[in-house]
């Protein structure tokens, strides 16, 4: 079947409003008599709160309300809820520098800021712990009372027999890797605008990746029924996982609006955005791999210790997911994983693009190159020998329905000139390759859902409105969903519009994360559109005097197959259906795959995703051995995304991901010293700027997943997962030193070169 809308690089639907400054983000919104909120955060990493006195703050002219935990229900939360350990305002203890203690609403921002300084808090400082290994040791300070050894969660499994695997191996490799604290750096800071009316209804405009689950969380914490809360996500300036759990700011904003009886807006400062927004967990990864002489991997044992920081957020899930992905890419008969999420008094981690996978993939793909060198097998060959393939059940139980990893790797190698460049070596230049697997959506691993619902309405003029709960955070999901609907209905792209991410006007969706939207919401809207198409055909079959099975919809008209002259415009069908027959056209579609049983609760074995994405990337670098500076000369990224619904958008996802991956490899790290984030701004925390971007080539590999909408899977998270190890491997290839700690700074390279001498 030839496609007319899907597969086209169409401009995004919200492009013009964003290009003209007309898109209204949270901080661009204002309501009459709106107040400005500000949060008082803990200056100490670990302390008991002895007393809070807000009297002086309340007396300041212009202050309209001050809240502390006494104004809350003292209900903890997290997402999913069984990991709950965080209160919107803390009352017994503070556990990191940035912990929320109190908040103020005032007539303007300056007064709100001044008032926070007038709140008196008496602390009893407690010993704090900042290193996860120290935190596990005997006698370490307890971050959360009763949590033994600060182990927030331990996840363990063994599949096959790890001992047997190592016994039968010819070589065993053991290495240790550490990773840094990358943060999202969404350009729009977190923010919310809440309004509470006399009917007891709360409306909140906020930066969120999942309005529906946040609504339920807010209901729980505010003591309101969910139907009395309307969450709206206006245009949003990025997310990358940072807006995946409700932020305490959201609850605080709502509480202030309820207390003051006036709308309240709170926007994080950039500094808060760094230390209080739950970035990528630093991990220490010990990885032991047993291989045969011929390169077949027999056994792999991994221990990953994550610095959870002060609270869970997604920490335990991140650790578990890391293990799942780490051990799903290659067919390894014997595997063992131990994942530990450890509480410390550092800023806490959360969901960030890749969800644990970038950390462990850095470790595993770096080690694979060490193995390949020792065995004298080309790194490409070694990987090809061990990959999972379509139809396989991976060692973790992942059911691989479509798999383009071989093609990704071969194409990346070809496009990068890998073979030619091996023969024409240039001093201090090197090539590195790395691969990855990542789920397209996930369900059941930690009791979570993958639900997505949608309504499709066709207007009497034949145009269509799609109602979807999904949140477009900039990745372009609104556009992708509309392309799917237009294709399914056979109408022009200009004829479809979307209403999304509003809990009152759109049906439920579990959220925009986990590379799930194209797959889950895409299937939902495709199903809904199919219902509408069937209704269209029913009416058209009467108008055309043809059987429904002989009809086809294309470019705004329904045609009789084989007789293109017999057709009727969809606009006419819609009008007839609505006004003549009194049966307006509308459809509904939903999705909650995969249908496979949830993974076993004790062994974690089983399938978590309806489909898996694959990628291979090749980096070419030049390293200056005098200064330690790494220059990336070329990057090739080949991604199996099933089917590119919009190739331009897919390329954009990959290019942006690569920039974050380079940053993770070479420079991004929120440095914390005794719990203090020392570089919480864009001067000291470096992200890539335009001149830093190397030439990039993207290759889209279309494996056509049998269950994906038009064969599509996701692409968002995978984009950065293999970038860091590809660069690390290229650096080794260039100068012969293996850096196992992120970020790979010039200092680390020079130190390694010195040790080598």
């Amino acid at each position, binding site marked *: 079947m030839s496609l007319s809308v899907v597969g086209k*690089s169409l*401009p*995004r639907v*919200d*492009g*013009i409003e*964003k*290009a*003209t*400054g*007309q*898109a*209204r*983000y949270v*901080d*661009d919104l204002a309501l009459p008599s709106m107040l400005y909120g500000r949060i008082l955060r803990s200056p100490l990493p670990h302390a008991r709160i002895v007393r809070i006195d807000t009297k002086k703050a309340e007396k300041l002219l212009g202050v309209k309300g001050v809240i502390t935990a006494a104004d809350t229900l003292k209900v903890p939360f997290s997402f999913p809820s069984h990991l709950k350990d965080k209160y919107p305002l803390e009352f017994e203890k503070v556990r990191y520098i940035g912990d929320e203690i109190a908040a103020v609403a005032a007539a303007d921002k300056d007064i709100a800021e001044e008032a926070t300084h007038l709140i008196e808090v008496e602390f009893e400082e407690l010993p704090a712990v900042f290193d996860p290994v120290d935190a596990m040791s005997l006698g370490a300070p307890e971050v959360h009372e009763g949590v033994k050894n600060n182990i927030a969660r331990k996840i363990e499994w063994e599949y096959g027999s790890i001992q047997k695997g190592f016994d039968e191996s010819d070589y065993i490799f053991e290495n240790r890797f550490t990773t840094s604290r990358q943060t*999202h*750096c*969404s*350009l*729009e*800071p977190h923010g919310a605008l809440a309004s509470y009316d006399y009917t007891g209804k709360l409306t909140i405009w906020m930066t969120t990746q999942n309005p529906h689950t946040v609504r339920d969380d807010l209901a729980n914490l505010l003591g309101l029924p969910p139907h009395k809360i309307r969450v709206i996500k206006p*245009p*949003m*300036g*990025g997310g*990358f996982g940072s807006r995946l759990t409700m932020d305490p700011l959201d609850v605080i904003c709502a509480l202030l609006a309820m207390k003051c009886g006036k709308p309240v807006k709170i*926007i994080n*400062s*950039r500094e808060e955005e760094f230390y209080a927004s739950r970035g990528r967990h630093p991990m220490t990864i010990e990885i032991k791999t047993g291989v045969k002489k011929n390169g077949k991997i027999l056994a792999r044992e991994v221990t990953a210790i994550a610095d959870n920081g002060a609270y869970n957020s997604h920490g335990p899930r991140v650790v578990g997911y890391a293990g799942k992905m780490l051990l799903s890419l290659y067919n390894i008969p014997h595997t063992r994983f131990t994942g530990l999420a450890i509480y410390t008094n550092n800023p806490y981690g959360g969901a960030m693009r890749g969800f644990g996978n970038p950390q462990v993939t850095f470790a595993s793909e770096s080690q694979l190159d060490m193995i390949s060198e020792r065995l004298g097998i080309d790194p490409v060959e070694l990987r090809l020998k061990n990959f999972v393939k379509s139809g396989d059940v991976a060692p973790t139980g992942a059911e691989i329905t479509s798999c383009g990893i071989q093609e990704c790797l071969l194409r990346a190698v070809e496009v990068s000139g890998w073979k030619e460049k091996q023969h024409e070596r240039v001093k201090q230049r090197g090539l590195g390759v790395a691969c990855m697997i990542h789920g397209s959506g996930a369900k059941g691993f930690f009791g979570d859902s993958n639900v997505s619902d949608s309504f499709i309405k066709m207007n009497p003029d034949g145009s269509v409105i799609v109602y979807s709960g999904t949140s477009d*955070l*900039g*990745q*372009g999901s609104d556009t992708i969903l509309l392309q799917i609907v237009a294709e399914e209905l056979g109408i022009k792209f200009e004829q479809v519009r979307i209403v999304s991410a509003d809990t009152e006007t759109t049906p439920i969706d579990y959220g925009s994360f986990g590379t799930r939207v194209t797959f889950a919401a895409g299937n939902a809207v495709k199903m809904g559109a199919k219902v509408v198409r069937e209704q269209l055909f029913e009416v058209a079959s009467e108008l055309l005097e043809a059987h429904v099975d002989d009809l086809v919809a294309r470019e705004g008209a329904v045609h009789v197959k084989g007789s293109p002259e017999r057709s009727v415009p969809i606009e006419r069908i819609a009008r007839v259906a609505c006004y003549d027959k009194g049966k307006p056209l509308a459809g509904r579609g939903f999705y909650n795959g995969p249908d496979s049983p949830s993974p076993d609760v004790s062994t974690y074995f089983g399938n978590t995703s309806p489909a898996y994405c694959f990628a291979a990337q090749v980096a070419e670098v030049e390293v200056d051995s005098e200064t330690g500076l790494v220059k990336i000369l070329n990057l090739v990224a080949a991604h199996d995304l099933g089917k590119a619904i919009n190739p*331009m*958008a897919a*390329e*954009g996802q990959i*290019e*942006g*991901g*690569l*920039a*974050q991956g380079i940053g993770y490899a070479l420079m991004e790290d929120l440095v914390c010293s005794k719990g203090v984030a020392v570089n919480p*701004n*864009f*001067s000291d925390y470096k*992200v*890539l*700027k*335009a*001149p830093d*971007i190397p030439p*990039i080539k993207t290759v889209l590999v279309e494996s056509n997943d049998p269950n994906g909408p038009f064969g599509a899977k996701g692409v968002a998270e995978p984009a950065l997962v293999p970038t860091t190890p590809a660069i690390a491997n290229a650096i080794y290839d260039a100068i012969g030193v293996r850096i196992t700690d992120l970020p790979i700074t010039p200092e680390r390279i020079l130190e390694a070169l010195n040790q080598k001498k």
Partner: protein
Amino acid sequence: MKKRIRILVNGERQELEVECDKSLLDLLRDRLGLTGTKRGCDRGDCGACSVILDGKIVNSCLVLAVEADGKSVLTIEGLASKDGLHPLQRSFVEHGAIQCGFCTPGMIMTAKALLDENPGPSEEEIRAAIAGNICRCTGYVKIVEAIAAVARRNR
């Protein structure tokens, strides 16, 4: 302390009292409702608040409102006309140079200032010109392409 200033904003004359400690960004967003100019860091690091002041690109968060007295400011809202979008705006849309869109207004204004001064810049010159504007979504590839496409037409 307040001071009375006269300022031309997108070709419209404005005369108003401003607090001496408020930035041009505060003035644009909070007083004049021109929210197309974004606040990304409020310390001159990210470029989301870039506007053109008397023909030069500035971070409006680093310019005091009183410093703009007697000057002319062009913001993203002043770029499109009744005849349609500015070529840079159209090019950004068509080339997929926009994702979340938060950096877009500042990025487009910076590109405009560049093209006003140098209508046919090289790719390297484009990259250097937007080096003060952070984009976390696109990896800048399509942004550079969008600006280069307009520059090519200028040559």
